[in-house]
């Protein structure tokens, strides 16, 4: 998942706590192994190295692709799982290295879901196009882990994969879990949210940016232009029924730049935005 993952549970014994943690951890590792673009020999690797050939995918991958397609259309193309290769020219490490327009244009040639042909269960990408489930995977893993824990036990649990989290229900002796949102990345919570049920996800990382000639470039990239979205929020946290919904809503809001708050308000979502 590329970030610290934790499970909080109110298990009565150490053995029960171990079991809960291992169920969540195995699901996280399974999803990581299967969908990480950094691993060889998984389905993503097969798709990305197909060089224009057709790849038949399993049911779970097909569901993720369906989901990505739906999001692509809901966001008018702003959410695009082929946009990951833009990272080859953009490095958001707080430095001042901005790629040239030519460099961006070159890599943008490989971006765009219209370069893919998705005919369930077969996916065909044009050569040079790659997909990346990084924008969905963590939230999906949280929901999957929570679903399994719900089936397995009545013990209240909180699954937190790198700040995207969901609970199986309220804790036993308190009305809610207290969750601090560290939007600044400085180690103090800006807000404390009491979560009894459902999920929270946060998009944005105020430490990831480029600053050059007085212009601050956010790490949120517009797949149409290959350039960072203007006026992106520092971080956006959304509360929703599932972590996947919360995560996608915060991502879609982030992609709207200065219009993030208006978008989330129109959707009647509960959110906390830091600029």
């Amino acid at each position, binding site marked *: 998942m590329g970030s610290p993952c934790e499970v909080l549970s109110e298990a009565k014994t150490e053995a029960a706590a171990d079991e809960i943690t291992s169920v969540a951890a195995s699901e996280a590792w399974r999803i990581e192994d299967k969908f990480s673009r950094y691993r060889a020999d998984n389905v993503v690797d097969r798709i990305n190295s197909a060089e224009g050939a057709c790849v038949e995918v399993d049911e779970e991958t097909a*569901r*993720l692709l*369906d*989901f990505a397609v*739906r*999001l692509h259309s*809901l966001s008018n193309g702003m959410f695009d799982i082929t946009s990951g290769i833009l990272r080859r020219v953009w490095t958001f490490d707080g430095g001042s290295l901005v790629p040239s327009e030519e460099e961006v244009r070159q890599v943008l040639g490989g971006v765009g879901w219209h370069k893919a042909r998705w005919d369930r269960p077969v996916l065909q990408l044009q050569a040079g196009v790659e997909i990346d489930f990084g924008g969905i995977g963590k939230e*999906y893993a949280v*929901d*999957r882990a929570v*679903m399994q824990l*719900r089936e397995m036990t009545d013990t209240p649990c909180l699954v937190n994969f790198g700040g995207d989290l969901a609970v199986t*229900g*309220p804790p036993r002796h308190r009305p*809610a879990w*207290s969750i*601090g949102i560290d939007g600044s990345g400085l180690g*103090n*919570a*800006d*807000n*404390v*949210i*009491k*979560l*009894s*049920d*459902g*999920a*929270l996800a946060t998009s944005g990382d105020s430490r990831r940016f480029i600053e050059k000639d007085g212009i601050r470039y956010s790490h949120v990239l517009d797949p149409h232009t290959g350039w960072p979205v203007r006026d992106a929020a520092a971080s956006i946290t959304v*509360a*929703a*029924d*599932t972590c*996947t*919904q*919360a995560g*996608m*809503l915060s991502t*879609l809001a982030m992609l709207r730049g200065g219009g993030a708050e208006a*978008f989330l308000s*129109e*959707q*009647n*979502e*509960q959110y*906390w935005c830091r600029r």
Partner: protein
Amino acid sequence: MLTGSRQTSISTALATATCTLLGSAAPSVVIAEEEPKWDFNTSLLYYGEDKSRVRDLSLKAIVRRLFTDDRVFSFGLTLDSLTGATPSGAIRQDVAQTFTRPSGNAEYTVPAGSLPLDDTFLDTRLAITAAWQQPYGESSQFSVGFSGSKEYDYLHLGLNGSFAKDFNKRNTTLSTGISIARDEFDPVGGAPLPFTAMLAVGDTSNRGGSDDKDVLDIVAGVSQVISRNLVVQANYSYSSEKGYLNNPYKFLSVVDGISGDTIIGTAGTSHVLRFENRPDERTKHSLYTQAKYNRGGKVLDVSYRYMSDDWDIDSHTVELRYRVPFGQDKYYEPHLRWYTQNEAEFYSLSLLEGAALPLYASNDYRLGDFDALTAGLKFGWTTRNNSAMSIRVEWYRQVGSIPGEQIIGNQAERDNYPDLNALIVQLSYRFKK
């Protein structure tokens, strides 16, 4: 509104898509709320003594700004409006008595047989407090604060600080606190010089100006979780007051050594009176112990305080509260408090004509020998949106007595320490935002 409905549909479409992705509908609906950042605690208190004595209407508000990581800034405001009359220290006579008002500009008459009360007791007090509290390291916290209050004739300014540290998996807490204060009096008409006689209207030759006192309080305590249901604590506190400790509005009757009647005045007031005089230092030590026991949601709170000071007052306070929840969000809480103290070493009902003046003397009933009982009931309920309301009604009764050897002649036939009854009603409203 076309845009609006299209926009809202993103959320709905996303929910449907997520349901398909996860292979099941969301098993629950999100319940999230931001932790409140503001805590408002307000109350209106009525305190009324019988026989037209003191009445106080007090409006109080404490606002706490809650920051993350248990850091809290609090600000409090209290507005008191005092009216009524308070015993002046003079004793009853079988004839009417006249007194010069504290201002020195007028006089008033107390009918024969009545307890002399000073009816100019009327004031408005504004008090503010401010404090900052925050954790210090893993297991400690500290606070620093300021207090100030202003009345017509009184100014209080104080600073305080406290430190607490948890041990033993937070089951034991040691705490200590200190506060220093400076109080300035600027009595109406000037502070009378101790033991001088009450003079005729217009004569201010015995009046001084303003005066002040310094107060130091130190407290150290321990609280201990004994079990899931029982918490106990014990505190020791030390208090030192130095400076002007007199009450400038209180005086004593100068009486005949045989009859006990107040000497008739020859000039100015009808009878001979002298302003009181107290030591200019007072040191108190007190020990407070408390136990709170929770049995199935019902909480019994028992406490005992022992206080001893170098004015030779010893007091004991036993207090009992029992909070019983009922219904959905309601509770009631009976309250009993019993207090007893013996009189100060220099407490004196009157001064003897012709005898040498004692070093100190005061007939302030609060320095006398008395017992007091408070009995009350509080009823509280929680409303929606994090707010809580309560109403408390209490009855207070104070019964005092004068040491037998101080009663001279005719004084024995008069009620020298009348009983005091008071009604206390408090409405509280607390909400968080």
